[in-house]
């Protein structure tokens, strides 16, 4: 059982190792509008604006905080 678990872990790691991120010239499909998470660019911008104005003390949609150093 444990040996199987180790084998599975090694296999899954090996699978990750063969994956490389796409090169800059291979991002054509990623750049398509249908690859965005939202469906309506204008609506998404509006939602993001409201969210950031409400939640900016906690960093809004990004990682950093509001500059007070408390986050």
């Amino acid at each position, binding site marked *: 059982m*444990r040996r199987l*678990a*180790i084998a599975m*872990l*090694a296999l899954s*790691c*090996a699978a*990750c*190792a*063969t994956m*490389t*991120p796409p*090169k*800059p*010239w*291979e*991002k*054509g*499909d990623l*750049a*398509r509008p249908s690859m965005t998470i939202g469906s309506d660019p204008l609506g998404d911008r509006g939602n993001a604006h409201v969210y950031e104005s409400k939640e900016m003390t906690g960093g809004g949609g990004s990682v950093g905080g509001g500059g007070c150093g408390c986050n």
Partner: protein
Amino acid sequence: MNMEATGSRFRRRVARVAIGCALASAALLAAPAQAVGIGAVAPAFALPDGAAKIVSLRGLKGHVVYVDFWASWCGPCRRSFPWMSAMQKKYGAQGLEVIAINVDKRRADADRFLAQVPAQFTTVFDPSGATPGSYDVKAMPSSILIDADGNVALVEEGFRDERRDALEARIRALLDRS
């Protein structure tokens, strides 16, 4: 007691395997140090243009060559085309050759782009991505200025309006020297 010992041995073994895998994948993912080096011989290419005529870098020896990697999905490429057309028109007689290498997987995408944004310079097609690979392109678009001896003089990543004059000055300097 015995169970505990086997448990910790198992954990150690799992940790070792995990570390080994992490190191292996890190080694595989490690990218080459930098894009094609300044002063190095520009990697050769021979690619078909719109009329399936092969354009090779070797055939352009003696010319100052401005190689531009572009794609239909790349926004700044759209802005760079009129500038490259202007450069070709202005300096073509002095020996400048603008070669725009398209890296689209689907030729139809490139053709649609070219119908919207006319190109008054040579456009070639490399759907395989071998040429951007050999130049180790880091950004889209990327431009490589190659002197008359076939050596890389400048690598420009992206296309920014405020760099137009500096790029033109470099082109002019290389043309004056050759």
